[in-house]
């Protein structure tokens, strides 16, 4: 057949109800169907934030256009004290919540940020993957500290960035769910990009997760600085994997794998139902726990909904029609 262009000639809520709804949704969240690994006892899942939609302090911005991509908070980060800092980009601010209450609100540039990490003692690193793609570093008052352009030989298409990560030696971007590129030092200064063939950093190594088939994730440990990968585990799921939501080292050097799975779809017009889980593996790659995570089928696009906090806990952001809930999971 001729190519297309060669054939052209031929064409002639209030907070109370929000809390109740979220608690109900949490209580109803499905346990993942049995995989091949063990499931946990009752997991320690603690709500740390409930916020409704709006512009007032303590509320979070939402935008659901008639014909377009619905957006709520895109991401968040949890610090060593367990406080959560939510990227409320619709309201051009970061809101810090501690003990379930608003502790601070920091104005940020009105850009389409997708991800956030902590910067310095009280500032933030903000990821904007849209042209002109950059990491914007702001101090604790929201004042611009520096802006780092992301396009380079190693990051030719910044729109393919799937995450921002912080390590002792600086800031990394994750490309296409595949690998990390170090782009800045801890002070936010540009560095010659260097790559890590994994998606999570810790100690002297990295972790890499890759779907080996629709129901299995292959996990690899990557020795650094050499980069040689060695198989760590094959994690099986009873249902089809929809997406990976987290890959991180646990406090003890084990592995945390967050996954959303979906039911077998029999009718194309009926969307599959989704379940979220956290798989906890020890340092040898043996599965220790499999914890059901709260999950809601929201239309809002979330860039990162599950993160490991600096306190070693896993935090899950759930977007519901009435607002946002963040829960803490102690693996």
């Amino acid at each position, binding site marked *: *057949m001729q190519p297309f262009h060669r054939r052209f000639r031929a064409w002639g809520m209030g907070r109370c109800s929000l809390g109740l709804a979220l608690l109900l949704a949490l209580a109803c969240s499905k346990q993942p169907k049995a995989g091949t690994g063990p499931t946990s006892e009752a997991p320690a899942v603690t709500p740390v934030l409930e916020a409704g939609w709006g512009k007032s302090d303590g509320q979070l911005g939402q935008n659901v256009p008639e014909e377009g991509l619905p957006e709520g908070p895109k991401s968040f980060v949890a610090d060593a004290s367990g406080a959560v800092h939510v990227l409320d980009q619709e309201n051009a601010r970061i809101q810090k919540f501690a003990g379930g209450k608003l502790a601070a609100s920091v104005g940020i540039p009105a850009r389409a940020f997708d991800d956030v990490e902590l910067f310095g003692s009280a500032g933030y690193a903000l990821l904007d993957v849209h042209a002109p793609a950059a990491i914007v570093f702001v101090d604790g008052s929201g004042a611009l500290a520096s802006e780092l352009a992301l396009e380079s030989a190693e990051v030719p298409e910044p729109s393919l960035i799937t995450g921002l990560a912080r390590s002792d030696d600086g800031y990394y971007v994750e490309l296409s769910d595949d690998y990390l590129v170090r782009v800045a030092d801890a002070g936010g200064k540009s560095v010659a990009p260097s790559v890590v*063939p994994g998606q999570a950093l810790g100690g002297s190594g990295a972790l890499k997760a890759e779907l080996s088939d629709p129901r299995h994730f292959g996990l690899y440990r990557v020795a650094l600085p050499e980069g040689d990968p060695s198989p760590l585990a094959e994690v099986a799921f009873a249902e089809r994997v929809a997406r990976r939501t987290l890959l991180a080292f646990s406090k003890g050097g084990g592995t945390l794998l967050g996954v959303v799975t979906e039911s077998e779809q029999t009718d194309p017009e009926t969307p599959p139902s989704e379940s979220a889980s956290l798989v906890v593996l020890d340092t040898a790659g043996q599965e220790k726990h499999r914890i059901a995570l709260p999950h809601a089928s929201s239309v809002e696009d979330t860039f990162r909904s599950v993160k490991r906090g600096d306190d070693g806990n896993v935090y899950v952001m759930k977007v519901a029609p009435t607002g946002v809930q963040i829960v803490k999971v102690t693996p």
Partner: protein
Amino acid sequence: MSALRLLCAAALALLAGCTVEVGDPAETEALGSVEEAVTQAMTRDEILALAASGVGYSYWWGHGRWDPASHDYPGKCSGSCSKCSHWAAPKGGPEYGADCSGFVAQAWQVPTAGSPKVDRHPYSTYNFRYEKTHWYPIKKSELKAGDALVYNTGTKGHIALFQSWTGGGKAMAYECSGCKVGCIHKPRSFGSSYIAIRRKGVEDEPKNDPPKGQLEKVSCDGGIQGFAQDPDAPKEAIDVVLTFDGPITSKTATRLTLKAGENRPDLVKKLGSANHGFSAAIPVSLKDGKKHTIYAYAVDDAGEHTKLLVGAPRSSSCGAPPATKADGVPHACGHGECQTGAALTKDCSPCADQVCILRPSCCDTVNGKWDATCVDLAGETIQACRGVCAGGPSSCAHSECEAGGALSATCSECAAHVCKRDPFCCSSGKWDWICAKEAKEDPWCSCGS
């Protein structure tokens, strides 16, 4: 570029008195006027090419038009739609942009084919979600490039074009997402509110799983080692592309294509057969003491998948080897790379360097020799050897970057890639300026800026 040729074809058709309408800013295609028309056949590549040509344009609520050949007038959107405003930007030019459903209707060319420069917005997300005129629902697990993901609650909705899955399960999508960011190409999650739909008239291709493999080792002495396999052809050796100092999408990265066909008995247990290994030396040009990045991709036979191998990319720095004789004069090759003879030294020419990466024995001056296989490698696909054995600067009759007579797809990797995308260039008797432009945009070609 397909879209550019589309534009030119449209212009020619207009000149020839055909009824194709192109580029009149005032024109808007009437909704449903040709609703009963049969859905035109279209390939998945054509859909993606049209979608890609719309990336960078602004979000324009209730509209769908853009110029696929130039991005001079992306337009501007302000506010929160539907209470948003849109205008031509830069000022004075045509007003271009699209909302999510206008974008997909143009990329799918539904209800009928036409230039993307003509504004149309024949369907909303409601239509895409609940009707089956020129499309039909499919299971999410059946999504292929060029299909779409849509949700609609009755009053609100969104639709995006699917390209591929990432290794983490995100969907690479083309979409006009909203006023803030416009029409974009990025990986993201689609929750269970979305269903998958497929345009009618799109050829269904057989299931094709992506290749898999691993970049196992990179060392200055041992070189680059790994394996790759295509699950759809598990006994065949497939291509591996190595790129240096940039991923495969980078236009500045150096690249080498290898066959992952080395016999590795240790792979039988893992892969079921042994002939999937690959190895290469670190190019001499990269042994300069500086840090370089090495990417390794497996490419399946259909060319549909290019998969980054586990263990890649990685950074490596190797010290500079002696590049000159003791007298400071660079080595010269003892004989031509196109003649058999004694083993050559890798630093005698860029061509010898690349041949010896692929076949180290060609430069093993103790035990090896420059045999017929080395000559074949020099004469075949290695970039630095292009034309060396044909006696000219290129084995193509003229530069791929300039218009001229027809070229053969076999004269260079560049020509092969251009002609794969646009067969016209190798079959029409003419390598026209569009072919030259396509070469300039192709990462396999080296046309400079």
